[in-house]
């Protein structure tokens, strides 16, 4: 369980959070390095969504800290965290269905570093996901599931973030669409400064695209290793990853 060699774009230390009497996260340490995809795996209810929501300030942390580079973001408001370069694609996607595709992207590009060059930022998204370019004037509610996932990932990337948090992007998508999206993601990350934290229940596909993996169970980290090692560990796979 060696920490990633590069400096972390996102460093989560001892994070604890929950809902009322429920403790959903219990002292979790996770880092995400630039140019890497870090998969966060675990069964339903393991605390994966809570981890992302606590990182982006939607759920208050009870203890622990969240740093982006050198900036301490613990306890900051979600909009401030977003402006600090952490983009979060929530579970269930979060498409603003009554806006057009382009308006959704513009909304993402308005944020932070892309300000003033929204058009090029949007064009970059279209280059990455050509199907969106064809539908730019359409209302977002007309998109298919895979297109919606492209839209929200593209929207999150349009502001040029340092960290991308993805919550179950494969949910409800056909395997072919999932691997297509994961491949595009891989290409985008390779050689860039972007750090991706990819939450998935679908461990097999996630490990196939990720560099590193972290396994959560009942709010605690039970394993943290290069993706290939995790995929090769039969006991771990059977106990926590379900394949």
């Amino acid at each position, binding site marked *: 369980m060696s920490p990633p060699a590069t400096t972390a774009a996102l460093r989560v230390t001892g994070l604890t959070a929950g809902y009322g009497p429920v403790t959903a996260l219990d002292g979790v340490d996770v880092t995400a390095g630039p140019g890497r995809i870090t998969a966060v795996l675990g069964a339903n209810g393991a605390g994966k969504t809570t981890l992302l929501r606590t990182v982006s300030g939607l759920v208050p942390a009870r203890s622990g800290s969240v740093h982006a580079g050198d900036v301490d973001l613990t306890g900051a408001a979600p*909009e401030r965290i977003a402006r600090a370069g952490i983009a979060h694609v*929530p579970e269930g996607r979060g498409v603003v269905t009554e806006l057009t595709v382009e308006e959704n992207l*513009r*909304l993402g590009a*308005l944020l932070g570093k892309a300000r003033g060059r929204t058009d090029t930022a949007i064009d970059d998204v279209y280059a990455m996901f050509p199907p969106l370019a064809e539908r730019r004037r359409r209302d977002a509610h007309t998109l298919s599931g895979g297109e919606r996932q492209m839209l929200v990932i593209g929207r999150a990337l349009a502001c040029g973030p340092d960290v991308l948090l993805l919550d179950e992007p494969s949910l409800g998508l056909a395997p072919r669409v999932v691997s297509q999206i994961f491949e595009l993601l891989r290409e985008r990350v390779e050689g860039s400064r972007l750090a991706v934290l990819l939450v998935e229940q679908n461990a097999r596909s996630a490990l196939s695209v990720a560099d590193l993996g972290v396994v959560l169970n009942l709010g605690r980290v039970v394993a943290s290793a290069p993706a290939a090692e995790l995929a090769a560990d039969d006991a771990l796979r059977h106990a926590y990853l379900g394949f």
Partner: protein
Amino acid sequence: MLQFVNTLLTGLGQGAVYAAFALALVLIWRATRVVNFAQGAMAAFTTYLALLVVESTGSWWVGLLTALAAGLVLGAGVERVVVRRVGPHNELGAVIVTLGLFVALQALAAILFGAQFRSFPAPAGLEGFALGSVTIALTPSMLITVGAVAVVLLGLVALFRFTDVGLRMRASAFDGEVARLLGVPVGRMLTLGWALAALVGSLAGVLIAGGSLVWPAYMDTVIVNGFVAAVLGGLDSPGGAVVGGLAMGVILALVTGYVGSDLVPLAALAVLVAVLLVRPQGLFARTAARRV
């Protein structure tokens, strides 16, 4: 025939005002899922301010601008001080709070400005235009009313369509959490939404008052008619609110002209019940799933 045409014209003139009022309700509903029952009392309040200004400056237009500015401030203040503190997922609490504002503001208007009837000047003439030998019920004041509503409508459309702040407001209203994750200061957008809505409501208040009488409760029937118009259009749809408002204006003008003005509120109730029973999502709603 002439009577029918005149009734229609009067109805459309009134309808423009209902449209503005319904639009104010829709803006707030979309932003905060609250039907602002205080909208009428807020508009009555700012109309009294306008009346003070009109009486001291002699200019109807300065009065109108005063009302609009006061509406902005009042709307923002109400959202910041009261509505925001109700918290989410408290439908009943939100309804009750706006009702509290309704009575409190109405009573405050009576205390500050008096409870008696006062006449509010018209923006322009109240004589109908003559077409050859007949005089139709289209007056210069009505043209100003319709024109003012149209200008505000187009302004709102431009704001929401073409500006960054409009885009942020739409996203905040649609899904506050997603908007925050995209760095939008949702709280400020909601305040702005209430402020703009109150501005539009104030416009309706001054336009209704023009050439007629004001008293603290003069907006009570307008609240109902505006609400019915908004529901008719599907509470979520600004375009629907405008069409609903015009339709209500015409329907109620027909009832006034051919049945009797006492029964106008009853007609509004009948329209509301009919819409809610037959097509609760409104005539123009795009999404069928709506909690009623």
